[in-house]
């Protein structure tokens, strides 16, 4: 276990040979594995399911499962029938009925994840490594997976399981190892370790500011009003409003459609039905520029692909969304640009060698600050934040929280999308919960608890939660808070 960016995934990559480690050795049966050699690791029986999608979107489940160690009938020829049979068997064992020929890009996130798990299970492994396998799974799917894992455990397979969900760890693990900032904090038998102790190991200090802000209930002007927003297959009939100075949390499981709603409000994708009003004026659909002009900003979820342009400099990134307004007679004004960049960097205390360095040399937290700064530079009155602290370290997280609060107190209408329930609870004045593309419920600040949010968010209404050991903290929930 460990916080975001603690180095868990990187360690796994070293073990499985897909990243070369600088020092130390990996030994299997007292034999040292060569560095950065995937084949050797596989031969030694190490099988890993990596966190980021290692799927081949154009290929079907059969190929995804067997690529790299295909079943052959004659030399050089695939044994397709046997591969299909085994693939189907595996998927059935995982409780998924899918067309194993269908390209993965046509499957749902959870189904894709199941294919990945099937791939890991298909290998004859002695050490099976799973890196956050349940992040996008429903309770039922998680349950099935756990049954299989216990079975493997009984067969003598060693399991290395990475998760942010304390419940899963307690349900499955014998021992727990905690990493922090790329270092080993310690390994303990699970039985000896209470939850609080475990969390302390991960965070490295007592829980950070839980300060409830002293802001009064927001009763400002309605800044953002969304009515009946729908797009087929993604979300339906989304209606809510956000007032000036209010922080509205939007919670839900991965794949609930929150990102799509935010993107539709901002105009990245056009909604099929419904309207968005900003301060009572209708916002034209599918027009990002119009949204920016009316004071809406979206800090997207995926900063590497949507938020930032990694090879460009910090300055260029900070300018990107405002560059058209920092002009004089249509020409760029270096003076205005410099002022804007300096303001953003100072306001967010971005740590970089200078504004001219490429963003991809920055740490994740600083990248996220640049992403935030880029949007704050447009001087928005409505801020849509999609997972603003994903992959951000504790210190930076606290800064981001403070920033969000201070913006709100200055009158910013904020929609906060987060899978980090404590975060939602700590920041929001009001919490909306989405389930399968629909608004499933609304909770006021005073009545909201993690249990209540989850009851709205889980597909099966949270009933199966206790038996599967699904934690009160869903995907990415930072257990520390």
């Amino acid at each position: 276990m460990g916080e975001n960016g603690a180095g868990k995934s990187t360690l796994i990559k070293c073990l499985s040979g897909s990243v070369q480690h600088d020092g130390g050795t990996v030994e299997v049966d007292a034999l040292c594995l060569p560095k950065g050699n995937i084949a050797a690791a596989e031969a030694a029986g190490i099988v890993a399911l990596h966190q980021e999608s290692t799927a081949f979107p154009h290929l079907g489940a059969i190929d995804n499962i067997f690529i790299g160690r295909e079943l052959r009938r004659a030399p050089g020829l695939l044994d397709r029938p046997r591969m299909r049979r085994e693939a189907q068997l595996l998927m059935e064992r995982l409780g998924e009925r899918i067309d194993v020929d269908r390209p993965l890009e046509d499957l749902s996130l959870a189904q894709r994840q199941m294919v990945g798990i099937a791939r890991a299970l298909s290998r004859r492994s002695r050490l099976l490594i799973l890196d956050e396998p349940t992040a996008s799974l429903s309770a039922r799917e998680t349950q099935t997976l756990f049954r299989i894992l216990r079975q493997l455990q009984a067969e003598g397979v060693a399991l290395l399981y990475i998760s942010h969900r304390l419940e899963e760890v307690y349900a499955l693990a014998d021992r727990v190892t905690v990493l922090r900032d790329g270092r080993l904090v310690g390994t303990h038998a699970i039985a000896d370790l209470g939850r609080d102790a475990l969390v302390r190991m991960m965070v490295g200090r007592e829980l950070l500011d839980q300060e409830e802000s002293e802001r009064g209930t927001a009763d400002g002007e309605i800044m953002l009003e969304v009515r009946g927003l729908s797009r087929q297959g993604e979300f339906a009939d989304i209606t809510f409003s956000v007032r000036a100075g209010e922080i509205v949390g939007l919670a839900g499981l991965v794949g609930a459609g929150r990102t799509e709603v935010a993107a539709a409000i901002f105009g990245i994708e056009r909604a099929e039905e419904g309207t968005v009003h900003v301060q009572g004026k209708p916002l034209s659909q599918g027009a990002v520029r119009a949204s920016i002009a009316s004071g809406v900003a979206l800090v997207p979820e995926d900063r590497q692909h949507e938020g930032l342009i990694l090879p460009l400099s910090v300055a260029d990134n900070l300018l990107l969304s405002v560059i058209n307004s920092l002009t004089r007679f249509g020409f760029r004004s270096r003076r205005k640009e410099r002022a804007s960049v300096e303001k953003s960097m100072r306001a967010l205390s971005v740590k970089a060698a200078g504004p001219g360095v490429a963003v991809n040399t920055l740490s994740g937290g600083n990248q996220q600050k640049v992403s935030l700064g880029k949007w704050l530079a447009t001087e928005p009155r409505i801020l849509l934040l999609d997972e603003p602290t994903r992959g951000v370290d504790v210190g930076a997280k606290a800064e981001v929280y403070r920033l969000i609060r201070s913006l709100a107190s200055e009158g910013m209408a904020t929609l906060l999308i987060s899978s980090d329930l404590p975060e939602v609870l700590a920041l929001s004045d009001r919490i909306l919960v989405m389930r399968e593309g629909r608004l499933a419920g609304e909770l006021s600040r005073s009545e909201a608890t993690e249990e209540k949010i989850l009851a709205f968010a889980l597909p099966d209404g949270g009933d199966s939660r206790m038996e599967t050991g699904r934690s009160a903290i869903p995907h990415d929930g930072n257990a520390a808070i």
Partner: protein
Amino acid sequence: MNDSATEATSSAGGTPNRAVSTVLHRLASQREYAVLALLIGTLGVVGAFNPSFLSGGNLRDMLVQDAPIVIAACGLTFVVLLGEIDISIGSSMGLLATALGLLCSPSHSALPVWIAVALTLLLGTSIGFLNGLMVTFGRMPSIIVTLGMLTVLSGVNLLLMNGKWITDLPQGLRYLGVGTLLHVPICLWAAAAAVICAVLLARETPLGRRIYAAGSNPDAARMAGLSVWKLKLFAFTLTGFLTAVATIVSVPRLSVIESGVGQGFELLVVTCVVVGGASISGGRGSVIGSALAALLLGLVRPMLIFLRLGVSATYWERAIEGAFILLAVLADHLARRTRKEPHR
């Protein structure tokens, strides 16, 4: 790229309704079918106007003409599947033709035909291998490498030929171009063999599936333990080899090897591969699609003659060819838009 719809039907195992929708889904999702429909439609229309267009003889002649394109496209498909491109095949073909001619013409090296053929295959394979080396070890974009090679090889070809065409091709060599086996021209055997091998390679071998995988998601492929560079090297080398095969079975059909052999061939083959449904960014594409596109684009020129449109229509030939490509792409785009898929 996927297995046939029948297999899907059986494997879906669900209600017939679901199977039908799976088949329809595939139909809409694959460029092959747009190309095939256009191909059949064109054959039908022109055939209705002039039935001799559909005569066995004409169909065979058209296939013979398309054979070298199909053969080269079989190789290029794999290169494009890996997200790379090879535009050197035109000049490569020219140089290989000259080499083949010089090696076996009695007034030059006068080697036995089979040795000349073997050496030509070796040369073609080496050119492909060199392209692959520069792309993988040189870490250069393939479009630049092969653009450079396109120019270099055509220069080398001209210097080698030195303005003297090769007119005295030995009978043994001509047989490769004009001869038949069981009443079927040799080049059709070669094209059929190339297509069958390429389809088998793509669908039934680990190598082929790995090429799809590496093109679909190179990082994931590396994590799965595949050597992406080896796959690329293989695809370029295969393309070089198949270009040599295409040269060997098509050039001896004519009595003279001249300096312009292969000119513009590269664009033709690239066009066929992309019209056949391959995605420029890799991962998507099929040998059958490329081959069908070659047949489709091969219809344009004969079509205009068989329609007896007269002299002025001749001048619109290229415009119609361009329109055909746009049509195939548009048809696919429309089918794709209904499914909200990203562009290729």
